[in-house]
């Protein structure tokens, strides 16, 4: 028996792009300058029945492209596989191989094995790898380069020719029921068990568990403890924000029994009651805060589901896999909403530490704290992870944002969101007693163990080695298969309920579905990727691409046949039994038996302290200058503002054919659109609008105003393209630091209070949300002291709006010389947290505030003007204020502007007029013949006629007679496009 190794190299007359990229990247590495590289894609094929001629045929017919590639075939490590490729000449070269670790998802290997089966062979075991020949570097440099190629969390680096004789397929498992003696543990012992068992529960919770089992007169089994830890984890139960909180701020004290319920949910409920009581109004919320996603009414047939999730800690350790499975997870939330929604659009928002390639003041890779991946690698990995999953799923990625701040070092944030369409009568699911528990999709492996509890732990420099098992790679095509089957099964009503396997795996999915009934689970029946998993591993594995269905036994044969017909595995795993208990069996053995009430209501209430003290705010006096052109150029080049085209173009934003307003707009498709519009039903003119608001810089001044500003930004972005402000649903995603610290939690409560207030004032209800706490990174500094970097409190607000007819939508690019430019909304002295302050190193000042009632009136008036066809172009004012908005509109339209600020009055200095980031403002282009109607539509709203669109491609802004900005549009565009140019992703 031979283990075959097949290398596929670019043909001698073809470029080796992978090698070129590595050579370019190595340029900055010690000993890496001037190296020469050649690469190959490798396959290891382990089969007793494949002989050499077969391997040659597999290489030629399946694995290589004869026009552009050359295969090399042999037994592992044999001579043809070691030979240095011709393109490196005679120079001696070292070899590096990067292989996925055993058990790590390798989708290409799975497909290759099946495709070899298509050729008529018994499907073999396959592993893929990447191979590099490196010439012109010494051994130490080659090793160093290798370490940048392999991520230790999921990959192994092998230097020199491979020397393996078989592929490991997992060992045997011998059943043994394990009990954990807990009765005799003291508090210290309980906490040690919590920590070392990776349960990450708190003392009061461990004490409650101990008491339960003391009363029951027995010890818990390992699987029972794990089940409790998963169900009670922050990730699954949101115990902090949905828990008791004693909050104190400058206005006094307030106590919450359930903070989220009393703030954000309460506002939604109040709005719904108001609408239900008003015969003129419609309560268009359908399902809020209970299902896997929020559902609102879309049209006569369908509702729309929307959800945004985070996947921060896994992305810190393995950016590609973390982001990949983050998106895969939120797509499954949409598949698991009601009886399954069809995903129609994705959105993604990333927060990174600035990589050195865009900000030279940042630390070099060598000077980063231990355990931190270089920011550039994090950024590239995250972008690629989202790309490869979203594109393969055939879901357009239409909206997003990227924020940079040094405090995201070691703890990046990765928000992934999906919107989906679901028929009214499929919008609710409810498992029935006696229904079968059916697992559908991917097989269960040892991947993702302890992901739910891991997200409750702070990241440390050791996380990579301790928690590597929590990190996974996704297999998008498996999930696409599940999607295809699920929608057909939904339309045939073959199941009564569905949910996804996310954090906690089967334990969370079955535990949640069976909460009101009870369930018995037969763990030995779960299909496994390889042998050797214990019953507990099966139960808590977070292997991806799995869904759980509740199926009437009469419908099971049809569901099974449907799944078979599309190559999707479906397995009966148990039954929802009306016992009120969760019974776990492995063969004939009962390995766990817990009352559902303990899981879902047994967690002890903990009162957390929360406090907020408004920071002293020194005033901010902007420097007085004659000319602010340079400030504008620096703001446009600032990473948060700069063009994200290098990322956007890697995402398919038009698949499904519903694209109306794309992420990049304008005459050359390179201007920053405010929000995306898609037509989810190709036979209808009705559209969905997706937008977002995020600005952690304001949070440093006041989390209340940060939250209010993010809401205003998300709503005004949606309104700017044509969304009806009377039908905008919101999502909150809180990413915060360690909320056991009262001031950290206090900031969060304060932000939630703003969400409550603004939702009511704008009549824009929150329909779902999610929080991610403990976003901190700790390491031991050189002196041995523990250092912690906490992220800036970061609230992402995502908005989903609707337009009756997409042909009324508006883009932000200037359209025609001679059109009038209006500023809508009031400019205030609000430079605190602004980009003007950032690029000038100014601190203090007031963060932008929101006047809710005035904002509501402004949005309504703007919508009236847009649907009336009165606005040719419209752009929201955000980072960089009026000046940045004017510049962006000009270069997007390939036109110029002549603007005079004099009409804005003389109370504020030029810098404030130009760069203040006051909320609820738009810059609008109006044809002269529509000016009167526009002014009438905006009556009662502060508007100012600023100037007009110019044919000359200059952005010229004056204050009376003095020119304060004068720049060529090309210069502005170049500044904006230069920062994150494509090269960053090389």
């Amino acid at each position, binding site marked *: 028996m031979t283990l075959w190794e097949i290398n596929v190299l670019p043909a001698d007359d*073809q*470029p080796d*792009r*992978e090698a070129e*990229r590595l050579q370019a990247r190595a340029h900055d590495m010690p000993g890496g300058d001037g190296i020469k590289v050649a690469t190959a894609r490798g396959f290891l094929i382990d089969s007793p029945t494949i002989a050499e001629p077969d391997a040659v045929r597999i290489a030629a*017919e*399946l*694995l290589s*492209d*004869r*026009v*552009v590639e050359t295969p090399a075939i042999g037994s592992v490590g044999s001579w043809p596989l070691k030979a240095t490729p011709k393109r490196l000449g005679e120079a001696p070269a070292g070899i590096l191989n990067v292989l996925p670790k055993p058990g790590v998802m390798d*989708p*290409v290997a*799975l*497909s*290759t094995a099946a*495709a070899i089966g*298509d050729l008529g062979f018994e499907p073999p075991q396959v592993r893929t790898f990447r191979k590099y020949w490196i010439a012109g570097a010494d051994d130490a440099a080659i090793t160093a380069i290798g370490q940048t190629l392999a991520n230790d969390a999921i990959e192994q680096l092998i230097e020199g020719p491979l020397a393996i004789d078989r592929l490991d397929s997992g060992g045997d498992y011998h059943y043994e029921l394990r009990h954990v003696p807990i009765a005799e543990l003291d508090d210290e012992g309980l906490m040690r068990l919590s920590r070392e068992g990776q349960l990450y529960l708190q003392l009061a919770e461990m004490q409650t568990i101990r008491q339960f089992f003391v009363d029951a007169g027995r010890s818990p089994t390992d699987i029972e403890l794990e089940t409790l830890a998963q169900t009670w984890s922050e990730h699954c139960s949101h115990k902090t924000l949905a828990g008791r909180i004693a909050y104190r701020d400058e206005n006094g004290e307030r106590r919450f029994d359930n903070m989220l319920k009393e703030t954000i949910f309460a506002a939604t409920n109040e709005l719904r009651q108001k609408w239900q009581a008003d015969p003129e109004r419609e309560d268009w919320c359908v399902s809020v805060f209970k299902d896997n996603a929020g559902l609102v009414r879309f049209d006569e047939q369908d509702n729309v589901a929307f959800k945004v999730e985070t996947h921060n800690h896994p992305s810190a350790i393995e950016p590609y896999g973390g982001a990949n499975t983050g998106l895969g997870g939120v797509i499954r939330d949409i598949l698991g909403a009601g009886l399954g929604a069809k995903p129609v659009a994705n959105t993604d928002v990333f927060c990174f530490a600035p990589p050195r390639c865009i900000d030279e003041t940042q630390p070099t890779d060598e000077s980063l704290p231990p355990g931190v991946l270089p920011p550039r690698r994090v950024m590239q990995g995250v972008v690629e992870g989202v*790309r490869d999953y979203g*594109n*393969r*799923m*055939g879901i357009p990625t239409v909206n997003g944002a990227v924020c940079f701040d040094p405090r995201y070092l070691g703890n990046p944030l990765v928000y992934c969101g999906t919107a989906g369409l679901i028929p009214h009568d499929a919008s609710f699911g409810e498992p029935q007693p006696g229904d079968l528990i059916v697992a559908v999709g991917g097989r269960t492996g040892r991947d993702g163990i302890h992901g739910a509890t891991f997200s409750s732990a702070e990241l440390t420099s050791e996380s990579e080695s301790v928690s590597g098992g929590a990190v996974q790679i996704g*297999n*998008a*095509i498996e999930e*696409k298969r599940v999607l*295809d089957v699920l929608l057909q099964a939904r339309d045939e009503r073959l199941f009564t309920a569905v949910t996804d396997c996310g954090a906690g795996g089967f334990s969370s999915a079955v535990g949640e579905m069976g909460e009101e009934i009870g369930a018995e689970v037969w763990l030995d029946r779960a299909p496994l990727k390889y042998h050797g998993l214990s019953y507990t591993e099966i139960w808590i594995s977070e292997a991806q691409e799995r869904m759980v269905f509740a199926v009437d036994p009469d419908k099971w044969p049809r569901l099974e046949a449907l799944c078979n*017909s*599309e*190559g999707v595995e479906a397995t009966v795993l148990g039954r929802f039994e009306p016992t009120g208990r969760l019974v776990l069996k492995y063969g004939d053995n009962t390995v766990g038996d817990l009352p559902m009430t303990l899981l879902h209501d047994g967690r002890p209430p903990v009162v957390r302290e929360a406090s907020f003290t408004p920071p002293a705010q020194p005033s901010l006096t902007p420097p007085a200058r004659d000319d602010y052109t340079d400030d504008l150029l620096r703001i446009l080049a600032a990473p948060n503002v700069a063009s994200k085209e290098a990322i956007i*173009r*890697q*995402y*398919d*934003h*038009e*698949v*499904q*054919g*519903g*694209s*109306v*307003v794309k992420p*990049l*707009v*304008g*005459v050359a*498709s390179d201007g920053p659109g405010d929000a995306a519009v898609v*037509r989810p039903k*190709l*036979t209808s003119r009705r559209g969905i609008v997706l937008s977002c608001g995020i600005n952690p810089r304001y949070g440093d001044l006041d989390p209340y105003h940060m939250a209010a500003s993010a809401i205003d930004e998300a709503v005004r972005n949606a309104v700017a393209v044509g969304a009806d402000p009377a039908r905008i649903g919101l999502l909150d995603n809180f990413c915060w630091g360690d909320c056991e610290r009262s001031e950290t939690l206090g900031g969060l409560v304060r932000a939630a209070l703003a969400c409550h207030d603004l939702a009511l004032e704008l009549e824009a209800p929150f329909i779902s949300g999610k929080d991610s706490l403990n976003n901190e990174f700790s390491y031991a500094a050189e002196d041995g002291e523990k250092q912690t970097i906490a992220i800036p409190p970061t609230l992402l607000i995502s908005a989903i709006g609707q337009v009756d007819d997409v*042909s009324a*939508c508006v*883009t932000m*690019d200037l*359209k025609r010389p001679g059109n009038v430019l209006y500023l809508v909304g009031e400019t205030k002295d609000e430079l605190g947290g602004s980009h003007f302050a950032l690029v000038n190193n100014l601190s203090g000042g007031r963060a932008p505030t929101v006047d809710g009632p005035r904002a509501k009136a402004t949005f309504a008036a703007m919508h009236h003007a847009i649907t009336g066809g009165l606005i040719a172009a419209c752009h929201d004012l955000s980072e960089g204020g009026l000046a940045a908005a004017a510049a962006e509109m000009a270069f997007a339209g390939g036109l110029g502007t002549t603007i005079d600020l004099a009409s804005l009055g003389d109370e504020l200095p030029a810098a404030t007029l130009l760069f203040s980031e006051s909320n609820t403002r738009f810059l609008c282009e109006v044809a002269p013949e529509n000016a009167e109607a526009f002014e009438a539509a905006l009556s009662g709203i502060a508007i100012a006629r600023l100037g007009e669109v110019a044919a000359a491609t200059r952005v010229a802004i004056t204050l009376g007679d003095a020119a304060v900005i004068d720049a060529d549009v090309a210069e502005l565009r170049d500044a904006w496009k230069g920062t994150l140019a494509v090269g960053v*992703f*090389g």
Partner: protein
Amino acid sequence: MPQPRVLILRAPGTNCNEETAHAFTLAGAVCEQVHVLRLLESPAMLDDYQVFCLPGGFSYGDDIAAGRILGGQVRRQLGDAMQRFRDAGKLVLGVCNGFQVLMATGLLGLEDPSGPLATLTRNDSGRFEARWVRLSVAAGECVFLRGIEQMELPVAHAEGKFVCREGSLPTLGAQAVLRYTTEGGGGTAYPANPNGSADHIAGVCDPTGRVLGLMPHPERFVDPTQHPQWTRRREGGNGVADGLKVFQNAVAHFG
């Protein structure tokens, strides 16, 4: 007008089937989306259709290479049926991933006894890119492109670079019916040619004119609001979307 029946093939990872069906339907055809396993079970079902369409997506994840696995399945198990289909005067269309699959089937006539004359491989940029391109059309015998001179359509792919075996470019020149171009016709460097294709080739037709494979997505431009500059063209009227004409031509072939 008789309504031709279109079989739209669906494999694991195919993801442009719905909008492709919509485009054919708008043009007046009747569509059925059929899973590849059904067609492999009974290739004779092709007899019930007039158009066979391989839509875009990531069949089998594009694992190993784009279209490789589905291409092999189709070539080995449907090759004869597809030859007969084409020879019966019927039409075959492959878009993006469908084009990549068609390249593997041999149906485009881009092979000689020593193997394939051309292939589609990784973009010069090394990554997936989505952007709109302008195409010049040299329709020749190609049924789908009759009467079309230029088109604007989006591309969205990582492996769309058309590469010829050494010396084969001149022999297949007449089959290259679609080329990337610019508004003025000159300067077809990146990004106008988004992937580095030889001779700017974006689409190829077989010698009969009835089998077309192309990287750009005609089904993504069948409604005016899909064009990236539609909000700038309101006043001039947006006219018939470029991509729709491709589907109308296919339907008209059976009129």
